[in-house]
């Protein structure tokens, strides 16, 4: 999988690059409009992460170029502006998603995976980790071919952690993803714990080969046993 990150903020770029390379993505970078424009003309990418406020040009222009050239790379707009106008414009121009800064890396992974799944592997909608198989479309989870029943939140949590398998998932990132954008202001994510507890119990009962580990004070990590 090849990903192009277009981002003028050097450290932000490094963060994203490091994080994505760990997932075995091939990552290329462009720090300004010119570099980005030359790269999209030459190579093909599975996904482009596009910061639309670039020092030497409007990132939305890149979207337009992709469209006129008939390139169907998936694009996720990354923006510090978090403005509704940009979001609507971007999505109208054919972007697949819009992620406002600041974001958690876990959220970035989840978005990239969702976009790739939608655009690249049609039909391939199950995720396998050990003896656990997650059917993303049907919201079904099987352990050793036995279905376990999860409520919507438990499924969303498992899905999110599985997407970020082996990585640290910050509890606020998890809360925002599962409980909605506005829960984040509650400054208290203890209520996540009871759902995690139930989820763990169900996974244990079926001898799942995955474990949700708590990282003290910060969040959770799903590991393959």
């Amino acid at each position: 999988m090849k990903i192009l990150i277009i981002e003028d903020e050097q450290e932000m770029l490094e963060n994203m690059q490091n994080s994505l390379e760990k997932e075995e993505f091939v990552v290329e970078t462009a720090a300004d409009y010119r570099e980005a424009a030359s790269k999209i003309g030459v190579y093909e990418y599975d996904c482009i992460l596009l910061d639309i406020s670039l020092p030497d040009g409007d990132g939305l222009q890149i979207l337009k170029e992709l469209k006129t050239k008939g390139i169907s790379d998936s694009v996720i707009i990354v923006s510090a502006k978090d403005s509704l106008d940009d979001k609507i414009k971007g999505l109208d121009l054919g972007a697949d998603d819009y992620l406002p800064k600041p974001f958690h890396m876990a959220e970035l992974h989840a978005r990239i995976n969702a976009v790739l799944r939608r655009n690249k592997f049609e039909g391939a909608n199950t995720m396998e980790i050990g003896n656990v198989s997650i059917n993303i479309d049907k919201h079904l989870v099987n352990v050793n071919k036995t279905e376990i029943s999860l409520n919507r939140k438990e499924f969303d949590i498992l899905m999110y952690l599985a997407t970020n398998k082996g990585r640290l998932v910050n509890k606020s990132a998890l809360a925002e993803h599962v409980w909605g954008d506005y829960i984040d202001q509650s400054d208290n994510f203890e209520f996540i714990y009871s759902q995690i507890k139930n989820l763990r119990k169900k996974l244990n009962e079926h001898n799942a080969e995955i474990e949700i580990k708590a990282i003290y004070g910060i969040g959770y990590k799903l590991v393959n046993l």
Partner: protein
Amino acid sequence: MKLLNYTTRYFAIILFVLLSAWAVLFYFEMLDEIYDSMDDGLENQKMLVIRRAKEDTSILEKNEFGEGYYTIRKVEPKNIYNIKDNYRDTLMYMHNEEDFEPVRLLESVFQQNGEYYKLKVITSMVEEDDLIEDLLYSLLWLYLGLIISIIILNNIVLKKVWNPFYKLITELKNFNIEKDENIKVQDTSIEEFNLLNKQIQVLLQKSRDSFTGQKQFIENASHELQTPLAISINKLELYIENNDLSESELVQIAPVLNNLERLTRFNKSLLLLSKIENRQFLSEQKVSINSIIQDLVEDFSDFASHKEIELTIDVNETIDFKMNKDLAIILFTNLIKNAIVHGKSEHLINIEIDKQEVKISNFSESGALKKEKLFTRFYKISNKNSNGLGLAISKAIADEYDLELEYYFDEKHIFKVGFPKA
């Protein structure tokens, strides 16, 4: 007191004093003039009588006034003290008035054929009390006439003249620094009002500029904070992920990360507040308040049950309102979240949807909160990790759409959102 009445009052007082003083002067002047002309008349008559007496000596015997206007009496020279003419006022019985009336009397002495005669000539005189009365009445009418003219003039002319001023006052009364329009002033030919209008417009423009500048500053500042915060958080997360840290190490790092996130949330709230105030949420649609509340209650159910609080909804009516959907969600999110955060466990939070209003009530043991401070920024009831912006944001949203957001205490804390009639 209105300016119009104020000037009228002063005019009335000044005119009263002025007219009274003038009346006294006028009275004496007039009286003086009357005496003067009467005395002239008497002197003329005296001379006529003396001339006649030379031709007709019979009248030298006329001792009584009778039907005439003079008497002549012979006097001994030794009884004459004063041969000069002497004018004085005296009283005489008048048949027509059946009373003693004042008359003007001229006493004079003349000599004829070696004899001395004393001549008295009279003429009827002005009745002073009548004169004063007449004068007083005339003055009263004059005074009233003047006052009425002034009032009418004031009301017509001054009102017209001061019109631009009153217009300006009305405009100022309706002026809202947050709304993006300047006040309208009336063109006038009066220099002072033009100056006033101009200065006020300049002043308002300056205030608005600094107000928007400040709003813009907050927005830009929180904007600029986003990226460094994102970088720091991401770096820390990567660090924790890449290094298998012991719990004691995590104990030290976790608070750093959590506080950075808290800062991010605070920054986001601040940005949101500026955006609402800078009117950046433009798209509007008909929003079903009922379904928003139902969704939120669903979203918050885990949070509430973690605190052992039960969330209930009483739906008595349906409310649809045209506004930005995100803002509608944020408005109720903050109110419901506020109720849960400050709610007491094992108690109920009830949301009641009635006709054009939503009431969110939660149990309280603390009694009423300070109404006037509740919706201001950074007001914290207790240090429950809140940033003190939630209710300020709700208030800003409510103000934006002319919704009524109100807190009152009725054994419970009640937050009421009133929707205007469609």
